[in-house]
């Protein structure tokens, strides 16, 4: 298959005057055209940093320390600001957390949709209007809201408008950073289904960031689990769901109520993730792991290796040590 995005050895984090955090540590992965990749992990595991990082959208103090990001064979780390600006939205767009105030409070929805289009393609006023209506239609928002201000929309509607904007230029990749988190469960599910339908219809790829694994298992093609800035397991969704290999993945899956089947007692994972501003020796999950191997796991950080076809895991339980 064709890879759309190739991320290699990405290190990113936040640089303050007196300290630095490495929120993303040596992350490598590939994303195919039209693929739906879910990235899951607890809050603070670096998944949002990764999401912003791969499209070079980390705002200071956020920073990419090293690594390469290739989008459609263009190295995003090497291109100049203006070319990057032109690629944005046209090639890849992003939907932020619904809780965030992503829409400019002082501009009408119309202006904001127009802006997202008109700086990339030449369109007349009436073409813009036609496209804006089309987009709102796509996400089931009445076009009468074109002249509304963001504060006049409900949370769900705002998020739909943002999704509509993200699709305005038919990008090849849409990154979604917990796009439904702040919404209520019913709206969450509905929006998610709509997103998936749109993807099938329009054929863009999605990187979907969430802390709620249960949200993704049904619709994403593949899943990556992040812990302490690293991808510790990645596999096609069914595989990962049926047979989680990493003890952390296993724990994560059992800390959410299952979607199907009997309700069982939840057991969360004891302990806290490590501090990302310090160096971590050995496996970052070592202190919390129930299956740790003393003398191995606390010494060497396992690499992400392909155990079965397309099933990657970073754990000493599987690398024969």
């Amino acid at each position, binding site marked *: 298959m064709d890879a759309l995005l190739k991320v290699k050895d990405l290190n990113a984090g936040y640089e*303050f*005057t007196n300290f630095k955090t490495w929120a993303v540590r040596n992350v490598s992965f590939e994303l195919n055209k039209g693929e739906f990749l879910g990235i899951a992990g607890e809050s603070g595991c670096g998944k949002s940093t990764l999401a912003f990082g791969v499209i070079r959208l980390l705002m*200071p*103090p956020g920073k990419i320390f090293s690594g390469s990001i290739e989008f459609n064979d263009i190295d995003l780390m090497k291109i100049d600001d203006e070319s990057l600006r032109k690629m944005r939205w046209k090639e890849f767009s992003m939907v932020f957390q619904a809780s965030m105030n992503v829409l400019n409070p002082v501009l009408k929805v119309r202006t904001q949709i127009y802006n997202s289009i008109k700086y990339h393609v030449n369109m007349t006023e009436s073409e813009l209007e036609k496209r804006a209506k089309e987009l709102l239609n796509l996400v089931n928002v009445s076009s009468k809201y074109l002249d509304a201000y963001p504060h006049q929309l409900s949370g769900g509607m705002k998020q739909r408008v943002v999704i509509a904007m993200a699709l305005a230029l038919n990008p090849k990749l849409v990154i979604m950073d917990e796009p439904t988190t702040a919404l209520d469960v019913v709206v969450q599910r509905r929006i998610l289904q709509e997103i998936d339908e749109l993807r099938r219809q329009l054929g863009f790829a999605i990187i979907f960031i969430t802390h709620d694994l249960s949200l993704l298992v049904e619709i994403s093609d593949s899943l990556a689990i992040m812990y302490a800035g690293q991808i510790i397991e990645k596999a096609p969704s069914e595989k990962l769901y049926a047979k989680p290999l990493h003890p952390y993945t296993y724990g994560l899956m059992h800390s959410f109520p299952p979607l199907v089947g009997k309700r069982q007692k939840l057991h969360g994972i004891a302990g806290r993730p490590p501090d990302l501003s310090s160096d971590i020796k050995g496996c970052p999950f070592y202190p919390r792991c129930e299956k740790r191997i003393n003398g191995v796991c606390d010494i060497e950080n396992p690499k992400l290796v392909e155990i079965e076809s397309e099933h990657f895991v970073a754990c000493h339980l599987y690398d024969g040590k």
Partner: protein
Amino acid sequence: MNYVKLFFKNRKSAIGVIIFLSFVVIAIFAPWIAPYSPNSMAFTPLQGPSWKHWLGTTAVGQDILSQVIWGTRLSLMVGLITGGIATAISVIMGLTSGYLGGITDDILMTITNIFLVIPGLPLIIIISAFIVVKGVWTIIFVISLTGWAWGARTLRSQVLTLKNRDYVKASVVTGESSAHIIFSDIFPNMLSLVVANFFGAAVYAVLSEAGLEFLGLGDSSAISWGTILYWAQNNQALLFGLWEWAAVPGLLIALLGMSFALMNFAVDELTNPRLRKR
């Protein structure tokens, strides 16, 4: 918290603290630093700067440098005391209004907004003009009275956010007294804002005091930077080419004001994560 440490590491506050401390040292050791008595009229009047009188002499033959050094005391004192009183009023108004809410809040906030809108200096001028007995305490009183409103407003909104924090709600549920909640749950958490406010009020006080004395509404026999400027202006120092007489005290007022402003900004920067240097 390590805010105190950060406060001294921050470049803005470090500069502010250094300027401020220099003035404190000058104020404390004024009798030893000043070459002459500030009131002594033993010298030839209206001299320009010389080795004997670095800043020259006044129209009645006083040494200006000595006056400037002694003047530090009064200017600094008025700034600190007025800043303190104004902040105290802000805290009381802000806490009461924010914590009690309801009609008390409405009334106190209306009063605050009125004081905010009524222009400070003209009000100070008119009050001082009616007060027959002029003196430092009159000035402190008048400036405090007009300088608390902005602080009260910012502190109130801080109280409103703190009131909704879990630990405060918990105290309410467990039936702690209002006084306990205000002083041990809310107040400690707004200390930085109170400190920032103090510095802000101190800037206001230093500048207002100078303005008031310059207009002759202070006690013109006391020695402060403001009164030195007043006498300089009254004797047309600048037109006689004695520019040091007016330039130096004004510069010092600006420096003192700036040191307070820098410390104010630094506290703001340290406690408001958005303003923190990236």
